[in-house]
């Protein structure tokens, strides 16, 4: 079973887990994801690759507590184990020299965009990085991003840090400046990816997004992860998770993500009230 080397809180709702999975790390490429199981009765939860330490075979996963499984993950101590971690799954993000390339990370998406930024930078691109979150205390990876970006911007919705407003504001400024941008990649909440894709479309700049529909197997077997892209239905776990943002039906994705909202809420509350619940009080309050 994969060993958890570290598992620390990095924001009000976000944790960083380091898992030793040498084989997986050796094969993994930026943009791919893994599926984790933490206990026998648990779900299979997909998590993006938030960092790859190839020397030590360590995978970084940045996760947000939103429900039972992610809450349970917080209880695994450094030195503990998870049941399994399968991957790398999905197709890697395209890496090429486009000239100027922009990565946009929102919320938890700040993590998976980082290995992509590294790869794009290494491929010789002029790298602009825009990250954003609701508030300063939710931002993370700022130094990491800063260290490799040719231009770096941080935004907060509440203005507590950096630009007061959305990542799309900054992106618009760059596009309006007339600078030729070869490629944009945006990862974050569905609404953010939608706004970014809508913004860039009239400028004709290729814009890719990484989709996170509900998944079960992650191997193309169930079709639960289907997303509409242009006129076709794609399975995000094998055809993606990256897709052309100008073609994605984001509204459908949003709806499908809510398919089990009620059940998940009930399951979580039942878990909170169960005698064996080892969640810290601070974690219990995270999921409304």
């Amino acid at each position, binding site marked *: 079973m994969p060993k958890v080397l570290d598992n620390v809180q990095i924001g009000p709702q976000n944790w960083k887990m380091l898992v030793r999975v040498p*084989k*997986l790390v050796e*094969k993994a490429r930026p943009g791919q994801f893994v599926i984790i*199981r933490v206990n026998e*009765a*648990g*779900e*299979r939860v997909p998590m993006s690759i938030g960092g790859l330490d190839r020397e030590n075979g360590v995978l970084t996963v940045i996760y947000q507590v939103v429900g*039972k*499984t992610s809450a349970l993950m917080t209880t695994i101590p450094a030195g503990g184990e998870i*049941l*399994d*971690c*399968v*991957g*790398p*799954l999905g197709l890697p993000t395209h890496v090429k020299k486009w000239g100027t390339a922009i990565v946009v990370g929102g919320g938890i998406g700040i993590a998976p965009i980082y290995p992509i930024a590294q790869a794009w930078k290494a491929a010789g691109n002029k790298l602009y990085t825009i990250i954003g979150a609701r508030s300063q205390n939710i931002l993370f990876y700022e130094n990491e991003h800063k260290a490799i970006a040719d231009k770096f911007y941080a935004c907060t919705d509440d203005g507590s840090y950096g630009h007061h407003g959305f990542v799309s504001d900054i992106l618009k400024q760059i596009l309006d400046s007339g600078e030729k941008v070869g490629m944009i990649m945006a990862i974050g909440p569905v609404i953010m990816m939608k706004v970014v894709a809508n913004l860039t479309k009239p400028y004709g700049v290729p814009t890719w997004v990484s989709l996170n529909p509900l998944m*079960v*197997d992650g*191997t*193309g*077997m*169930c*079709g*639960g992860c*289907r*997303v*509409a892209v242009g006129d076709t*239905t794609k399975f995000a776990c*094998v055809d993606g998770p990256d897709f052309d943002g100008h073609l994605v039906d984001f509204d*459908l994705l949003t*709806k*499908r993500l*809510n*398919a*089990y909202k009620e*059940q*998940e809420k*009930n*399951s979580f509350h*039942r*878990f909170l009230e169960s005698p064996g619940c080892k969640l810290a009080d601070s974690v219990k309050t995270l999921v409304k």
Partner: protein
Amino acid sequence: MADQKLDKKDRMKIPRTSMPEQDPKERIHNFSEVPRGLEIEMAVTEASRCLSCAKAPCVSGCPVEVDIPGFISLVVERDFAGAARKIKETNSLPAICGRVCPQEEQCEVVCILAKKFKPVAIGYLERFVADFERENKLTQIPEMAPASGFRVAVVGSGPAGLTVAGDLIKLGHKVTIFEALHKTGGVLVYGIPEFRLPKKIVQAECDYMARLGVEFQPSTVIGKSDTIDELFEMGYDAVFIGTGAGLPNFMGIPGENLIGIYSSNEYLTRSNLMRAFDFPNYDTPIIVGKNVAVLGGGNTAMDSVRTSLRLGAENAYIVYRRSEAEMPARAEEIHHAQQEGVQFHMLTTPIRFIGDAEGKVIAMECVKMQLGEPDDSGRRRPVVIEGSNFTMEVDLVVVAIGNSSNPLIPQTTPGLDINRWGNIIVNAETMQTSREGVYAGGDIVTGGATVILAAGAGKKAAKAIHQYLLTKKDSLVKG
């Protein structure tokens, strides 16, 4: 009761034993197995119906030619474990095949008795002896050949892969099974429901393989973790691909991505593999429909519709575009579904799904069909009756219209030939693919077929792989 000295006429007079089953009214509220299995005396009586025909036609009806009169006569002699071993000479999964083989169109349909009476219940007996052997812990570790020094990688742990592994380990080769999911057994664990094939039986088969020394590597997706070529680089001398037909087909009609429309693979995987039927004790949720429509007429459709009843559906429909006679599902499954109150809408097909503001399916527009001229499959082609449109209220739809083959391995294996449906092309005798040392069998070669055909393909492949390794050894020695 059963007397070995019965003459032929007496034997023929014994009525076919019927299988004790859970009452339909009760069983639609649980996931326990429906047929309970024969009692010892029932089995012996049933076995005594067999005429031990010299040219046993039943044997040629079985895709792997189980020595049917041979094992049945052992049942008459009450050597049940011996009977199980007899079957295992050609079929390593009798507890499973006894339950899920379409006997009515394979071994039993050609039984001599079927002409005038009912055929010998070969499947019931096969199940009985296999269960007897397992439950009484009489499973023997077979004689193992000395270690050959060769290593074989098996990709996929369905019936094909398990059979290859079981046969090759006995021949002295080291075998590793790589499985994408976290549990081994393929469709036997993620597809076929508990009420038809208890998971502990599949687990027992996998445990048995492990006792023989087969190494399992679950949660490993070949083509992603390692490619077939990398398996060779890692020191495997041969590879068997038994990855099944795991790519669900959809109808391709408007509204198909609404919430509440599942592929049968997703629906059954949530319920079986992830045990969503036991939500919230298990964390994976599943939509419990009130009015459930399952599209299709195969085993997968029957499994889905019967699952929906057990999860609490008030109305469970099978919607099939041909008529009952063309339904590919096993007769027994159709019968079970009928008993449980499934409503059959034959000669009907949906043309569009209708959703609400939240994107949930609420209805389905259908048309009626009539049967026209025979098509490629020899079955009469269903043709739409113009103007027959009507709407069905549904809140859950399961699309069970078959699977295509998963492209992951062909995409990552240069030189591996596939046909236009994406199935791997093999030599029918040896199951060898276009790549040296790479063999394939089961649904990935045939498209969705049966457990016993997959297991049979595994047997053939194991034989050929063994031969291949021997030749390799010779050339190494001479080399």
